[in-house]
């Protein structure tokens, strides 16, 4: 947030008093983080879009119950998490999708590197679905969307150190799960 701009809490208070412009500014400010959070739960782009929209809708419905003395970002983050969970419950649950058990040696070599990368990405997505919730979200915000640990922590209501720890564990877990692909990618020069 640039200096001199209204704080999130000020804008939220103005939304409570019926300021539509304040609502639009909050949406503009948080649309990207909210997308990132719900994307850490949902794989489908359409579902991500719907969930992000739903998050703001629910936040608006609950705005009278928001206490402006408390930080706004973690409050919105909790709503985004709940919305994403509801979407998961309503649609196919990604984290329970069975992973193909065969390793890279058991399948045909990929004729095309791009196709193989797409396959690896799909596997990463599935592995991400198996990570604990906060680890997954921290990884998504920091490693995928390039957010600083401080900013991710502000949104998640965690310290930057905790966010870094989550990211570190997520990377290690993903690396362990995808170790065999690392060798294959190396073989293909990727």
């Amino acid at each position, binding site marked *: 947030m640039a200096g001199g701009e209204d704080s999130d809490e000020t804008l939220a208070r103005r939304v409570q008093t019926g300021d539509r412009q304040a*609502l639009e500014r909050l949406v503009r400010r948080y649309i*990207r983080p909210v*997308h990132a959070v719900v994307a850490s739960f949902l794989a489908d782009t359409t579902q991500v879009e719907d969930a992000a929209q739903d998050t703001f809708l629910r936040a608006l419905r609950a705005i009278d119950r928001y206490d402006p003395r408390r930080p706004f970002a973690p409050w919105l983050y909790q709503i985004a998490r709940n919305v994403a969970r509801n979407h998961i419950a309503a649609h196919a649950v990604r984290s329970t999708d069975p992973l193909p058990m065969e390793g890279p040696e058991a399948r045909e070599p990929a004729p095309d590197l791009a196709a193989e*990368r797409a396959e690896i990405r799909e596997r*990463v997505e599935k592995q991400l679905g198996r990570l604990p919730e906060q680890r997954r979200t921290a990884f998504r915000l*920091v490693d995928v*969307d390039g957010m600083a640990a401080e900013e991710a922590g502000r949104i998640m209501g965690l310290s930057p150190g905790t966010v870094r720890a989550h990211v570190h564990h997520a990377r290690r877990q993903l690396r362990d799960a995808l170790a065999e692909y690392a060798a294959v990618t190396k073989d293909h020069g990727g």
Partner: protein
Amino acid sequence: MNDEIDHGPESDMGSAAADALPREWMPEAAPPDGHPTWDSRTARIMVAVEPEWARLRLGARERAASWLSEMGSWLRPAAALAAAAVALLFLVVEPPASAAPILTTDDMALSLIVSDGDPVALWAALGVPADPVLALLTFEDHGAMAAPASPTTPSEEGIR
């Protein structure tokens, strides 16, 4: 799309590059801040929340109106009750009676006539039981102060 993400020094990707997964393994990143896609998504969300916004504002106005009317319905009987209490106070409570009569020179002169020059009778006529000597002294003092133009007080006249 991935190339638009800045993994600069403030990003943890840069600080732990060895630890990070290859970028090509990552899920597709969201467009960066300021990308036009966020404008269109914001606009879409604002359109989507519009009915809810209108409903909330209408609800807030209705709540404010019902609060006022509720306050009014509570205040009217309260005001009537308060007015009745004040009226009752005027009816029941009499102004306190003065402890002693306030004497004026005219009262004194008339009382003197009635009392036939007797200071004790004079004070008795005013409802004050008095010692004969003190009554006389008090009467003389009062007469001297009240009528400085007349050097002769009724008591002095009596003495003469």
